[in-house]
């Protein structure tokens, strides 16, 4: 059938099974918006900032397991979108971004709202395309979706000049892609898997280290089976929260800068690190010179470039985590003697008991950790949890009882303040039966606060719990520990009235100072099924502990005990 480029965009999205897109119109993308108007298969959510469009698509992708789609215009529309694109890139989230571009004859002339989208997004996309001929459009879109979701997932940009979207051609959506230069390895080398199996049988203190790749691969069941079979203790990264399950006795919790004592000690003492879809980020490893000093390292990852990037690896296995872990289970099952890691586990359980995550609760002032625990205890079965970036993010990562990784969204690699709310919108759209909660801070929430309006307009209720300490808390904490308490530009005592903001954007607001008020506000917000801000006054100087100072070794933690002195409010 003969049709315009813009119609081809719509038909291609339908062919990909896309039923929702997040976007913002503008000059160069208007042809596509005209076609969106004429159809009713695809729902369009109008976020109020292009960054939020891409982050909502990102949140939708994380929770649904599908490819998220964002549509933006050229120039400022695109530069606004960049932070969202970079976020998806750093956390390997499959998103396709369709951007308008000035007409091809104007490209390169500094036309109105022209920016070299391909050029500036090259380092933060998995791949990007400039469409120069309408006859290539359907094929490019097919390839974009394939590249975004396969291998190590990531964002893919398709930049469409305005004249291309109005040109006509015959529409044919290809059934398959033909990319001779792009063939991700799915199946791991079985010889390597057998070597790893042998290494496991020879190890005394092995440790499984799970990262975001395991989430993207959908390997939760396989990894839990592996633990059940071997009784190897395990730690999770921020990205992988929920894979092990909070009540799994073999889980030592999250490791890294704000990880648990037991997780970091396990990593310091292990003799075999089995990395599954993790990437040895600096927030995880601390000082690389002492990291895994006594350990052999096995690294399972679909991205060969991730392997041996930061640490020397003894057992590299390139492949899809889900497939490789199942192969490992099959090999191990042939001959595995349970119970050989009994004393290692005992040792770690002792660490866990000696230094659990702790905080001092109070009846006078709300503690952020209590708020997180209460969310989990009371509503954990129903919540899909999103966070912004900062102290609240770490408290959520530490104290929330994670049940499944698909119920957890956090900007981990890029650390994007403003991620929480638009991501929670995407998550809610993907799982309308869940309570979408964004745990945020009084700093982060303002970075995409306008999305309260988006959520209200479309009836996508998101409950925003602001842990409000009137500080840029994480920076304040660093200033307090490492900058002799020179609190440069972190005091946010000039406060917004968040209840009024919520109401102004069509939501409901609650101001909360006590435990009962918090529980009442949450219950009411859930019952009203509306977008809400619950502005929780918390202890202003609460710190996130334990903490491994940047560049220190994992076993050099600042513990709660060390800093547990009476503090002024």
């Amino acid at each position, binding site marked *: 059938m003969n049709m315009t480029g813009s119609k081809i965009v719509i038909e291609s999205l339908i062919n990909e099974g896309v039923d929702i897109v997040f976007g913002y119109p503008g000059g160069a993308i208007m042809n596509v918006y005209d076609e969106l108007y004429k159809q009713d298969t695809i729902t369009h959510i109008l976020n109020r900032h292009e960054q939020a469009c891409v982050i909502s698509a990102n949140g939708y992708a994380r929770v649904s397991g599908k490819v998220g789609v964002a549509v933006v215009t050229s120039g400022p529309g695109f530069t606004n979108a960049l932070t969202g694109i970079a976020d998806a890139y750093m956390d390997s989230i499959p998103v396709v971004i369709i951007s308008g571009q000035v007409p091809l004859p104007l490209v390169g002339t500094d036309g109105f709202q022209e920016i070299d989208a391909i*050029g500036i997004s*090259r380092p933060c996309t*998995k791949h990007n395309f*400039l469409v120069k001929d309408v006859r290539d459009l359907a094929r490019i879109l097919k390839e974009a979706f394939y590249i975004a979701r396969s291998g190590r997932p990531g964002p893919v940009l398709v930049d469409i000049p305005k004249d291309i979207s109005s040109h006509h051609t015959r529409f044919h959506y290809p059934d398959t892609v033909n990319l001779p230069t*792009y063939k991700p390895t799915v199946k791991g080398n079985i010889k390597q898997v057998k070597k790893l199996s042998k290494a496991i049988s020879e190890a005394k203190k092995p440790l499984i280290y799970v990262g975001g790749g395991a989430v993207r691969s959908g390997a939760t069941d396989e990894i839990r089976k592996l633990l059940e079979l071997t009784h190897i203790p395990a730690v999770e990264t921020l990205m992988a929260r929920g894979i092990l399950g909070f009540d799994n006795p073999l889980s030592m919790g999250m490791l890294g800068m704000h990880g648990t004592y037991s997780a970091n000690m396990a990593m310091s003492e292990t003799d075999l690190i089995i990395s599954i879809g993790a990437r040895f980020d600096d927030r995880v490893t601390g000082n690389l*010179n002492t990291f895994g000093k006594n350990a052999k390292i096995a690294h399972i990852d679909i*991205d*060969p*470039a991730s392997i041996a990037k930061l640490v020397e690896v003894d057992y590299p296995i390139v492949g899809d985590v889900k497939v490789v872990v199942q192969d490992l289970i099959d090999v191990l099952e042939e001959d595995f003697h349970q119970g050989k890691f009994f004393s290692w586990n005992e040792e770690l359980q002792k660490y866990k008991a000696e230094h659990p995550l702790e905080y001092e609760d109070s009846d006078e002032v709300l503690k952020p950790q209590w708020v997180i625990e209460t969310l989990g205890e009371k509503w954990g079965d129903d919540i899909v949890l999103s966070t912004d970036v900062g102290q609240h993010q770490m408290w959520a990562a530490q104290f929330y009882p994670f049940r499944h990784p698909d119920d957890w969204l956090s900007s981990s690699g890029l650390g994007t303040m403003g991620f929480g709310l638009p991501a929670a919108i995407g998550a809610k759209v993907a799982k309308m039966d869940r309570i979408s909660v964004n745990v945020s801070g009084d700093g982060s929430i303002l970075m995409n606060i306008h999305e309260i309006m988006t959520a209200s307009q479309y009836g996508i209720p998101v409950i925003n719990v602001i842990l409000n300490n009137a500080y840029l808390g994480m920076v304040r904490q660093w200033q307090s520990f490492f900058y002799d308490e020179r609190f440069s530009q972190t005091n946010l005592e000039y406060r917004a009235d968040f209840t009024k903001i919520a109401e102004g954007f069509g939501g409901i607001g609650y101001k909360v100072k006590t435990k009962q008020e918090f529980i009442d506000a949450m219950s009411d917000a859930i019952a009203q099924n509306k977008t809400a801000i619950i502005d929780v006054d918390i202890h202003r100087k609460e710190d996130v502990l334990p903490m491994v100072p940047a560049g220190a070794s994992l076993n050099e933690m600042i513990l709660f005990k060390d800093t547990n002195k009476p503090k002024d409010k």
Partner: protein
Amino acid sequence: MKEEIQRKVISVFAVNEQGVLARIAGLFAGRGYNIETMTVAPVPDSVYSRFTIETRGNKKTIEQIIKQLNKLIPVLKVIDSSDIIEKETVLVKFSADNNLSDIDVLCKVYNGRIMNVNENSVVAVVVDEPNRIANFLKIIKKYSPKEIVRGGVVSMER
């Protein structure tokens, strides 16, 4: 951890399309890798171009460069063999005041020849291994070359 910095010549086969050079160059720039020389030309009768890149780094860096290059979607393959033949072309312009036969002899030692002479200058071309080219350029200094154009390394596996 600190390892010896080595020189490495890498051949990259990538789809000959707009922007692919920028992808490769951007990868080196963005990740802080060195490009000493780079030559690019289409591979005959194919959709690919061959990039010959001379780079420096320790073993780990070179490994990462190869992996990151392979990760680029338009890249078909990366060859990092050390069993290769390398050649580099250099053009040198001398003043015509020099003794032509001196220059001619010197060029011949380095597989080259004088290719153009006019009233002002003499242009010579030399094709040889990169380390020999370096030697050649050292030796001709005394003839005060007016201009030197190095072509970058090309290589082929044995």
